[in-house]
């Protein structure tokens, strides 16, 4: 018996070996042509009308397809995502993410995917996406996931593949990865099989997905990665996004350097080699004071050179994501009645990341004015952009009533979203689905989308598809007659969001327009937030209501009455009986001082709608969570417009 059994084994493994040899002896797939792509959809987009139907499809090069998409000089808002992790991010893989970069781009385009065993759909596809996997371990993830890849048979990876239980996975992750990353000299884990695996992950997986899913005029993919430095658990992460496929051989990871000044030096090198790239910092709320320090990493005060280099590459900051809203915190801005919004308070209870006013975006972009005045350069000339940091491989999965969590098993079940925590970062109930990016671009192509980001002509929404325009200029011809005139005059005589006005004798005029999410809630109001620094260089700000829905009159103290609340907490529903579908406003600054550096940005508020925790509770017949907002006012923020005195 024993003899027969072992002989049978011998014959099976021999057969397998033979099959492998046959494969090795020359049966390869025809290589796909990188350049040629189906003309699935080249689309017209005339003056904010929907894009026209594609011409007869023929095989064309990407460049031909891009050139065939018409330009809209008045620009269109394209919604997208700059911050999403797939199975090629080690922490996401540990959390059970099995969607690859290719799957993530498919999800963004509206295809069904399976997340933690559930079928999931974005419902409203995105216009563009940049997958930003953690660059550090993509090689390891290549070894783990690709059949026959080098290093794939490492016992530690075998161990990893065998772990079913979340706690075991977390323990594995902590042992091999986290402790390693937070040390002074982070390195690859012992199962790394060498830089060729990193190169394969970057080229054969990441860039291939970017190439395969690009449909100029319909859906744009941008190449990118996340540089994940966490010195002393302070979040210094940056997403690096490329304009086209002129990209380096390998991404830069925090294992190469965990010093952001060296990241910028590397980016300078890439520019010399022909790449165009920018970096987006995020989660400044959890940066432990490191994101906007007054000194460089050598401990010296910031210089003009530092400021110029930083703002050359860091043109945008991620305003809000799953781990909280970084605009403001109610504790530090008690005068701002809308500062209490997705504050993510429990972020401050993990890893000593206590909140500081200096970690918030409003503080930073205002403080930048002080550097501009003193150094002649602004290190924090940051436009605003959105992102999720979703670790399920689901870009732009931001809708409150369609939310199934963002971090695998950590918040994948109702119980975890109500009682659990997202590993070492935030409590599930305190997290949120993240934000969306909007860019005003002349067409939906890589170049146009990226150029809009580089010009900071971008806005952020807390997840809905609010569109918002913002122009300023001393020569704007007064209150515009209609939204189209506002846009035409804005481009003709003013600057759009992200721009700078140099010198003015009297207050420039500001024009604002916002339109609701066509499938969502009405708008409450449009606000302008003004920032400046006092004589001591300390940031100051003021929130001004510019235009609002209904017949509300501000009280004597200037406070506008609340818009109301139609949410039925028993059913988790709301109605559009209050609010406006569209708002348009005109404003000049009565306190304008021609000698004072200042910034202005716009915040648009929706009427109250149910928060994801309320949908979860109602659907499962559970009580609302105490201490958690049952409704939220979703919102949009535009990039600032800077005012710079001429002398």
């Amino acid at each position, binding site marked *: 018996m024993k003899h027969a059994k072992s002989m049978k084994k011998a014959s099976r493994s021999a057969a397998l070996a033979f099959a492998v040899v046959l494969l090795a002896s020359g049966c390869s797939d025809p290589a796909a042509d990188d350049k040629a792509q189906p003309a699935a959809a080249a689309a017209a987009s005339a003056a*904010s009308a929907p894009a026209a139907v594609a011409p007869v*499809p023929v095989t064309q090069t990407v460049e031909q397809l891009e050139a065939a998409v018409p330009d809209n000089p008045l620009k269109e808002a394209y919604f997208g995502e700059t911050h999403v992790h797939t199975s090629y991010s080690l922490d996401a893989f540990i959390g059970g993410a099995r969607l690859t970069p290719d799957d993530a781009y498919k999800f963004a385009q509206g295809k069904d995917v399976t997340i933690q065993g559930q079928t999931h759909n974005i419902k409203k596809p995105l216009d563009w996406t940049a997958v930003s996997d953690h660059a550090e371990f993509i090689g390891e993830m290549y070894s783990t996931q690709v059949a026959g890849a080098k290093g794939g048979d490492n016992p530690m990876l075998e161990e990893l593949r065998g772990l079913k239980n979340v706690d075991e996975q977390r323990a594995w992750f902590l042992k091999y990865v986290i402790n390693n990353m937070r040390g002074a000299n982070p390195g690859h884990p012992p199962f790394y099989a060498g830089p060729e695996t990193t190169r394969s992950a970057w080229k054969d997986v990441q860039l291939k997905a970017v190439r395969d899913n690009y449909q100029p005029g319909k859906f744009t993919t941008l190449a990118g990665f996340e540089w994940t430095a966490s010195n002393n658990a302070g979040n210094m992460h940056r997403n690096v996004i490329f304009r086209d496929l002129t990209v380096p051989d390998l991404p830069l990871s925090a294992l190469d350097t965990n010093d952001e000044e060296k990241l910028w030096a590397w980016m300078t090198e890439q520019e010399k080699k022909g790449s165009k790239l920018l970096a987006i910092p995020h989660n400044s709320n959890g940066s432990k004071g490191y994101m906007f320090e007054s000194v460089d990493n050598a401990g010296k005060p910031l210089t003009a050179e530092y400021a110029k280099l930083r703002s050359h590459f860091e043109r945008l900051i991620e305003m809000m994501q799953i781990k909280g809203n970084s605009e403001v915190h109610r504790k530090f801005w008690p005068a701002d009645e809308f500062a209490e919004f997705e504050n993510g308070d429990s972020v401050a209870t993990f890893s000593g990341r206590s909140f500081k006013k200096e970690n918030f975006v409003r503080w930073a972009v205002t403080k930048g004015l002080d550097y501009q005045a003193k150094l002649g350069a602004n290190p924090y000339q940051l436009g605003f952009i959105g992102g999720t940091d979703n670790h399920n491989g689901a870009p732009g999965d931001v809708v409150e009533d369609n939310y199934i969590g963002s971090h695998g098993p950590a918040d994948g079940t109702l119980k975890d979203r109500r009682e659990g925590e997202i590993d070492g970062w935030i409590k599930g109930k305190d997290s949120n689905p993240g934000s969306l990016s909007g860019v005003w671009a002349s067409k939906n192509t890589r170049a146009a989308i990226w150029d809009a980001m580089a010009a900071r002509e971008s806005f952020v929404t807390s997840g809905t598809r609010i569109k918002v325009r913002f122009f300023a200029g001393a020569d704007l011809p007064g209150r515009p007659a209609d939204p189209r005139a506002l846009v035409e005059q804005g481009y003709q005589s003013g600057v759009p969001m992200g721009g700078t006005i140099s010198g003015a004798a009297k207050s420039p005029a500001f024009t604002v327009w916002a339109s609701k999410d066509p499938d969502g809630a009405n708008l409450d109001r449009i606000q302008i937030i003004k920032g400046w620094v006092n004589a001591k260089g300390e940031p100051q700000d003021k929130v001004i209501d510019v235009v609002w829905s209904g017949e509300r009159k501000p009280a004597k103290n200037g406070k506008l009455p609340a818009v109301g609340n139609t949410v039925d907490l028993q059913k988790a529903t709301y109605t559009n009986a209050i609010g406006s579908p569209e708002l348009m406003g005109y404003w000049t600054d009565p306190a304008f001082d021609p000698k004072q550096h200042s910034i202005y940005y716009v915040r648009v508020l929706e009427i109250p709608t149910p928060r994801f925790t309320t949908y979860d509770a109602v659907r499962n017949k559970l009580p609302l969570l105490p201490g958690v907002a049952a409704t939220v006012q979703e919102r949009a923020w535009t990039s600032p417009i800077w005012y710079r005195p001429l002398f």
Partner: protein
Amino acid sequence: MQIRSIVKEPLLHFLALGAALFLFFHFSGGGSGPASSRIVITPGQIEYFAASYAKTWQRAPSDAELKALIDDWVREEIAVREAMAGGLDRDDIVVRRRLRQKFEFVVEDIAEVAPPTDQELQTWLNAHADAFRIEPGAAFRQVYFSRERRGAEAEADARAALARLAKAGSDARIEHLGDPIMLPQEVPLARRSDIARVFGQDFAERIESIAPGSWAGPVESGYGLHLVLIRERVAAKVPELAAIRPAVERELTAERRRRQLAAMYERLLAKYTVLVEKRDDAKSASGTSTGGAR
């Protein structure tokens, strides 16, 4: 080409080759397979040891180091054979998963040998037309009425305007009708999803049932009410194969792999008798099946 077509039937060849090798080892009484008592290290293997060493340490191994590498490999080989003979691989979940994974990779890779022909791709496209269909589209004009501005009158105002527009016809002037909003009054031919981007998903769906050529409405959107004239409608259609060949090929190949795997298990299952034993506490029936367990 000859080999490729033979290889198309992986199961047959696993079995045939397995049988042949079994006979060879059985009668030669030697070889260096797992069941043999000989361990042979070929010059090729030694070269491989030396090369891997050099890759790590940037120099060739000394004789002593090379000997150590060979010794280690011999130990590993002994350990593997003894462990397998003792059945140590059988209860090890990691070993089992890895074997299954390797086995499935091999089968999947063989399935990939022959690229699909145009004919096969066309047949696939015909059978899966829905997955590749380009959405329907429409070109239309619209006049907007704001509920916020007109309140309860909005609907009546819209109906009154509809009566006038019906008389004025499809090319009626509409610039000064209705309420101002950033939405375009003239929408050139656009896909349904693009209409939804601007007007909302409900609106995009609702206008699909409006007959072209005459004013209709009011149609509700997230913004308010609209009178709509459909100028042109384009039905959903499936593109030519040439335009979407790479996508079709990707899908077809993936499906073939899945089927090949399923078919292989199906046939291998026929060789086995699967007995699902009744749990003590289970009330429901279970029993014996031959090649039937799923």
